[in-house]
């Protein structure tokens, strides 16, 4: 589904990703772990098309397309979704309007008819259950005045509505208490299908107790320094990152 080859990316003059290669197949869950500043979030944002990063080398192929050629909205319409680490507040636009606008633009891109507000209510009713959110949240401005947990749940709600093929969760566990973490993780699990894939970017192993990865990659200094199965996450939990970061031959 996604093939990243020798990806280099910079923010301004600073190179952050220094040659990432990664293959993700449909049905898989990949965890990207690593210390702060390793480039995890940059990788997530580059996949989504964040305008602040410049890809200087390498390729990303997504479902046979050159992902880097697509605008952020085209990537979303093609099924790429990024759950933001820091969801953006948009005072003045209701969650209901925002979600329906996004849902309809994606339908339109696929030649499907748009839903009117009444039809969309039915879609929402079902999706709200996935993240145990109250319908009243729909009339509030997007993320404005939401608690940390509400913002993250709202990200997963968007994911539920937009039904992406490739979901990238950027530090979705940060700042969540254990109940919110469980709700968010269960939401992600409910949305898992054999034809979609998930990338979970996280600093801690905690989230991976709930969302069990097929593959774990450790990112440091802009490169993947180790890949393994889910047991690698447990090892990182026990030993930290330092044992992996020691220079070779030291």
């Amino acid at each position, binding site marked *: 589904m996604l093939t990243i080859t020798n990806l280099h990316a910079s923010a301004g003059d600073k190179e952050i990703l220094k040659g990432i290669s990664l293959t993700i197949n449909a049905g898989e869950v990949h965890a990207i772990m690593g210390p702060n500043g390793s480039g995890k979030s940059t990788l997530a944002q580059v996949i*989504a*098309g*964040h*305008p*602040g990063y410049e890809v200087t080398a390498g390729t990303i192929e997504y479902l046979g397309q050159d992902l880097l050629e697509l*605008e*952020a*909205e085209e*990537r*979303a*319409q093609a099924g790429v*979704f*990024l759950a*933001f680490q820091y*969801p*953006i507040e*948009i*005072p*003045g*636009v209701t969650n209901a*309007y*925002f979600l329906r*606008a*996004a849902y309809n*633009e*994606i339908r339109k*891109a696929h030649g499907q008819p748009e839903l009117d*507000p009444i039809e969309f209510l039915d879609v929402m009713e079902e999706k709200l259950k996935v993240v145990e959110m109250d319908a009243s949240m729909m009339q509030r401005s997007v993320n404005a005045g939401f608690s940390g947990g509400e913002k993250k749940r709202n990200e997963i709600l*968007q994911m539920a509505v*937009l039904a992406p093929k490739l979901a990238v969760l950027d530090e979705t566990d940060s700042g969540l208490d254990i109940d919110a973490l469980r709700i968010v993780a269960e939401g992600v699990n409910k949305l898992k299908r054999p034809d979609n894939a998930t990338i979970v970017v996280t600093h801690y192993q905690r989230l991976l107790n709930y969302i069990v990865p097929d593959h774990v990659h450790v990112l440091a200094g802009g490169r993947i320094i180790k890949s393994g199965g889910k047991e690698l996450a447990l090892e990182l939990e026990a030993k930290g990152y330092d044992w992996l970061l020691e220079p070779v031959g030291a």
Partner: protein
Amino acid sequence: MSPLANYAEQFAATATAGGAEGPAWLPALRQRAFDRFHALGFPTTRNEDWHFTSVTPIAERRFKTLKPAPTALTGADVAPFLIDPSWHRLVFVNGQFEPGLSQFAGLPAEVHVSTLAEALRERPEWVQAHLGSLAAFDDAAFTALNTAFVQDGVVVHVPVEETVDTPLHILHVIDAQAQGAAIHPRLLVVADRASAITVVEQFVELGASEHLVNAVAEIVVADGARVAHYKLQREGSAAYHVGTVQATQGRDAAFHSFSFAEGAALSRTNIYTKLHGVNGEARLNGLYLIDGNQHADHQTFVEHIAEACASRELYKGILDGSSHGVFNGKVYVDPEAQKTDGKQTNKALLLSEQARVDTKPQLEIFADDVKCTHGATVGRLDAMPLFYLKSRGISAENAKALLTYAFAAEVLETIEVDTLRLELERAVFARFTHTALE
């Protein structure tokens, strides 16, 4: 003929043709006002208060006073402008009162609402005591011009402890008959102690005309009274509009002003209030939306004369095309006005490379124990919210439109009259997204 000679000729003609009607003091007031206007002339950009706004286009056009004429407009014509048909309303067409289009019979008997012409007949001494008491014209040429030529308007007196529950709607419709005309509407609101009223003053256009509306409102908010004044300037793109709102507030008095301006080739809106009593609260908010070659200028002036008053200002502008916006927010804090709490925020969003905004906050603080802040930003849409919306599949164009609406929504949210807020939210939403707000 020079611009001033034009008005002198008009004034002489008006004075002989019915301008002398009404109580004896009125022609004298008009004459003083006209003499003052003639001495001042139209303001030039050398005048600090008009530095960014040239009124040469107004002076050059030599607008004429309209002769009274029956209107052909019907209830159906003005229906689209009735924000809520259940409100009490006075409708004026080209400055002339239209009783057939108005309805304000259901007001409490104690509350006086009438045209200025009627008030001059029925209670001339009361009008004399108030008219011009706030809208001084010594240094204000347009206020002098209004006072000299004032034809009609609205007089509102809310007695002690009376509350008018539904908004009073003053609708000024300008149509093609007003081509080349100057219209000088007047509003006088006196809210006695502990009374409350909301006034919505709206200027709209039906059929394009090049004209000048030069409106003056005087608002007295006595001790403990609450007055909300909404001014909606939605005239056509060939119009010229100058509007001055001057309020005075007593102890514990609240004055809430909102200015919405999206029409006119050139508009200047002055919102002034003086906090004369302790614990007063002034809230001056506004939104202007301009495009093409439009020029919209707002000047606010809050004078903190008494102690422990609060003032809050939020003005926003959205500018497209080659439009030019001006915001000048003055705050004066008297040496006596300790514990003043003032906050002013002014934000402009530029949608094009050619749009321009000049913003000038002016704080003159002569008391030491005060909290006064001001902030001004001019910019474009932020990258992160745009990316957020695009990352959800929303096109760049729609994302920009939605965020532009959201920028405006923050100030529209402060409108306390639900139907009015919804009306403006819908209008602004449709303006930028070209779709209907559900």
